[in-house]
Structures are given as C-alpha cells and as structure tokens.
C-alpha cells in the first residue's frame, strides 16, 4: 500500500523519471502530496523519501524551507494577500485587515468553518492589479473590500470551482511527451553531428 493514491503514485514515478537524479523531483513531489492531502503529511514525507532516495527528515527539512508547503492542515482555500511595496502603495495592508475581518481569522489562521486559511504574502508578480490576491495560487484580481467579499461568497457557493481548484493543483496539466534516451546514445549522436558539421565547414572553407 502506498500513501499516494494509485493514479498519483504513477504520476509521482513519472515525475522522478523526468530528472537525471531522483532527488530533483523533491519539490514537484511535495506539491503532489499537497494536491492529494491538502498539506504535506508525515506519511507522504516517508513515501517521498523512498521515491527520492532521501530520509523523511531530509524531506521535512527541505519542505520547511519553502513557504508554499504546509506541514499542518489548512483550509480548502488558501487566500494570500500581498502587502509588499507595490501593493502597500495600493492599500494592501487595509485589504489584508478587511480579509481577516471577513473570514473571521487572524493572518496565518484558518476560518472557524475550516474553509479558508489567510496568509500575508510577499510579492506575487502581478503588481499592475494591486493589491494582489491569490486563492490556491490563482490570481483572482479582487482589489477592493467589496470585490473581496463577493469572491468569498462565490467560493463558498462553489461558483469558482473551475477557476480555483482545490489547493495543490499546481501541475493540473500533465506532461505528455518526453525523452528519456540513453545518455551515451545521445553523446554518440552529438559526436557524429559535430563531425558532420566540421566536414561541412571544411568543404565551405575550400
């Protein structure tokens, strides 16, 4: 029995095979674990350790470094409000305070119904529509308190299920093509191509 569901376990193995070294799949696998469970569970860490050839402690140590990975349960919707410089100049702090009041939780906390977790984020690189709000890392472009309240209403009533899928869906599109050719075969091809080019260059020089 694996902790990853059968389809996600297959996906996980695909991800590992994309890289020359297994450990490189660490971040994508942690995203995948969040996709399944909402946060990175101890069981997932153990399985990621097995998949990447590391220890659960190394997986935890790596995951803890990155802001996007949650090691404890979060709401179905993780709402991020940016207050960095461009958003600060556009009322980001005020919008964050409003979000906290609307959702009934402090910054970093989860709403009483367990649906929303509120975060203050650093720059999200969408500064022309400031202040920037993301829900599950989707830009929702709600820059005013009224728009924010409408967004919460839409989320509660499932009207945004397509635009804002449950958290962790970073890689909604799967890779469909790929090349996992023997490196020596490729090196051989490259050497042949180089020889052909040199021959061509020599001919052109004459």
């Amino acid at each position: 029995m694996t902790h990853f569901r059968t389809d996600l376990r297959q996906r996980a193995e695909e991800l590992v095979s994309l890289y020359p070294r297994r450990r490189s799949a660490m971040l994508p696998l942690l995203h995948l674990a969040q996709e399944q469970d909402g946060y990175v569970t101890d069981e997932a860490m153990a399985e990621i350790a097995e998949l990447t050839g590391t220890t659960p402690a190394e997986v935890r140590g790596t995951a803890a470094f990155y802001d996007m990975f949650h090691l404890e349960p979060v709401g179905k919707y993780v709402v991020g409000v940016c207050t960095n410089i461009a958003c600060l100049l556009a009322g980001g702090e005020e919008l964050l305070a409003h979000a906290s009041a609307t959702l009934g939780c402090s910054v970093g906390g989860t709403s009483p119904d367990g649906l929303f977790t509120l975060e203050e984020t650093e720059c999200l690189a969408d500064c022309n529509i400031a202040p920037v709000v993301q829900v599950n890392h989707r830009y929702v472009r709600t820059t005013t308190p009224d728009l924010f309240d409408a967004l919460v209403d839409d989320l509660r009533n499932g009207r945004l299920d397509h635009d804002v899928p449950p958290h962790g869906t970073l890689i909604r599109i799967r890779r469909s093509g790929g090349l996992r050719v023997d490196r020596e075969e490729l090196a051989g091809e490259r050497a042949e191509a180089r020889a052909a080019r040199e021959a061509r260059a020599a001919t052109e020089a004459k």
Partner: protein
Amino acid sequence: MASLDAPKIVSSRAKFADSHTLSRYLETGGYEGLRKALTMFPEQVAAEVDAASLLGRGGAGFPAGRKWSMLRKSPVSYLVVNGDESEPATFKDHYLVERDPHQLVEGVIIAAYALQVTQAFIYLRGEFALGLERVQQAINEAYEHGALGRKIFGSSFSLDLVVHPGAGAYICGEETALIEALEGKRGFPRIKPPFFPAVTGLYGEPTVVNNVETMSNMPWIVLNGGAAFAALGAGRSAGTRLFALSGRVRNPGVFEIEMVKNTFRDLIYDPQLGGGVIDDRAIKAIIPGGVSAPWFGPELLDVPLGQDEVAEKGSMLGSGSIVVMDETTCVVRATWRIIKFFSRESCGQCTPCREGSGWLERILYRLEHGGGRVEDVDLLLDLCDNIAPGLTWPPQQTTICVLGPSMPSSINAAISMFRDDFYAHVQHGGCPHD
C-alpha cells in the same frame, strides 16, 4: 517625448486573446527562428547572440553571449531558465510565461542548440499556477510538433525540456540557490568561487542559467540577426526591454520600449505608457530597478532607461521594475515593508543578513508604529554599515549572496533624502501621515 517606434520583440503577440496557443504562435511566425537556427552552425547562432549585445534581463545585466562562452567543455552540460521572478514589483516574466509560453520554449530550444545542450529546465516560481500550466502545455505541443524531443525538425539535434515548479522562496532567484532547489534541496546559495555555474552548476556539471525574458528574445534575434537587435538602444544597452511600472501611476503595467531612447519621465508620464501620477500628485521618489536599488528623487526623472545611464547616477536598472511613490507615500512605511521582505526571505546562512535583517526590521517597525527613538536613525545606518561596509554602490559583500548587502540601499536612500521625516515619526510617536 517617448520614443515608441521600436518593434515589439517579445510582446508582439500579447494583443491576441489566444496568444498562448500553438495555432496563434504558428500563424505569427512561431518556430521559424528555430528552423533557421537549425540550418546554422551552433557557433554561428551563439555569434548572433553575442553580436546582439543582449544583456541578461534577470537583474545583474551580464552579457548573455559572454555567459555562454564561459561554459566549460564537458560531455554533459545543462541549460536552466530562471523564472523564479520574485523581486518585489517585478512582473514581466509573469507576463511572458502566461501570454507567450511558446516564444519562451522556442527561445530555450535555440539557446540549447547554440550551447549543444541536450537537457534543459525551466524553473518557474510555484505561485505561477497558470504560468506553469501554460508552459507545460506549450512543451507538450512542442513535442507533438517535432520542435522538442528526438531529432528536432529532422535535424541531428535532440533536446528534452522539463518545467520545474518552485515553492515560494525569493532566494531561489539567485542562480546557485535555484540550482540547489532544482537538485531537490533547500534554496541555499552556494559559496563562491566558482562565481559562475558555467564552471560548476547542476549536479556539479557546467550549467548556463538565463532569465525568461533573455530566452524570449532568442527567436527574434536569430530571425532578424544580432546586428538588428544591437541597432536598437544605445551604448551597452541594446534592444528593447520590458519595463514593469507600478505604484502610484494611473496605468501600471508591462511596457516593451527601446532602451536608452526613453527616460523614467517618459515611462511614467506618456499617455501610452504610465499615463502620469494618480490625481496628478507630485513624485516623492522612485525605485528605479527593484527594491535592491537605491532610490531616485524627482530631479533624476530625465535619466535614460539604460544600464550604464542609471549606474552613473548611483543606482541600477536591475530587473526593470519601477515603483512610483508620490507625495502621499510614507517613506518610513515603504522602507519598513521592503526590509520586512528581506527579513522574511533571508535564507539564514550568513549572520550579517540573518541577524541584521531582523534587527533593521524591528527598528523600522517601531519608528513607523510608535516607540522609535532619535538615535534609531543613525543606528539604522550603523547596522547597514555592518552588512555592507562603507554603504557604497554597488555594495561591499559580507555574505555568500547579494541578498543581505541589498538591504542598505533603500534605507540609506530614504534617510539621505527624507531624514526629517524619520525624526517626525519619532516626535509624533508613530506615523504622522496616518
């Protein structure tokens, strides 16, 4: 008057609603640059890029061609694209990956051919959920189209391209930290030397790391020639560039304009660009190139948007992001927020950065929110002097990477320009502008 005649090199397709699709890309000359590149020798392609004098568009502004020429000869080497765009108020790569992912993919394939690399990675920050989808979709389509994989377009060149999601860490934009993250580790910048991953990079092999916008220029440069690119702009700043304008302007956004031929004033005030300051207020200061850059006062608005032109005035064009602060902006609060960012994002390896950032943040917090003291103003500068001795520009290094020594820029600028405002905060027991 702004000079807006230059061709749109990387943003030509953004006007189409379906600019991210393969069909639109092929209709508008897509993959023609790659087809042409494959008829040339790899060295010729690299020579065109060299001739273009393209400065890397990530922030450091290092010539892309020179970076390539440093690639150590080795049986295995890698190309990694840096799409970890997290510098506050920088949002041009976000624009490129969502609006024109095929252009990025084609650029990567061309660069990989020039470098004779058979494995490339595009590292995108994890918060770009849609961007990750669009780039993966473009890669899938490119494989199907024969532009990726074995024997590209029937040539002898093969390439595998993998998109790698980051997970929320500004420091991973530093190229050696990015490589660590790509190896599945914490994003800790590596000790230098070696200064360039071209010597020792991913898995210890020679690696070129280039920015998303740098790569997106490749198809045009190959199709039109390096000389045509170099003919735009002036001096060391060739070509056009995407400028990300934000803050207190009417029309914030990403604008592709010719380098040097336009000034900060053109960018901020031209009706086709920034459209002026909100409510026609006066400008207090601007950040000319990301929050690591020293600020400019309104007297420097006529400086041209060029690498050396901005450097001569003691700052940098950096990531090409310009933030406008008007007369209503509290500079103490702005400085505090910038330092809070650095404090949160410090990776914690080096003492001056890890401890200094938290200390600076607490002092700025109490100045802004009450409890600040008169001596705090010079204490800030003293602390900054410990992180980057002499408070010079460019800053002295005391740490493994440039994150820590980037902090003094805004503090030093804000205190030099608005020292009295800091004292007003002390006298008022908090922000007098609230």
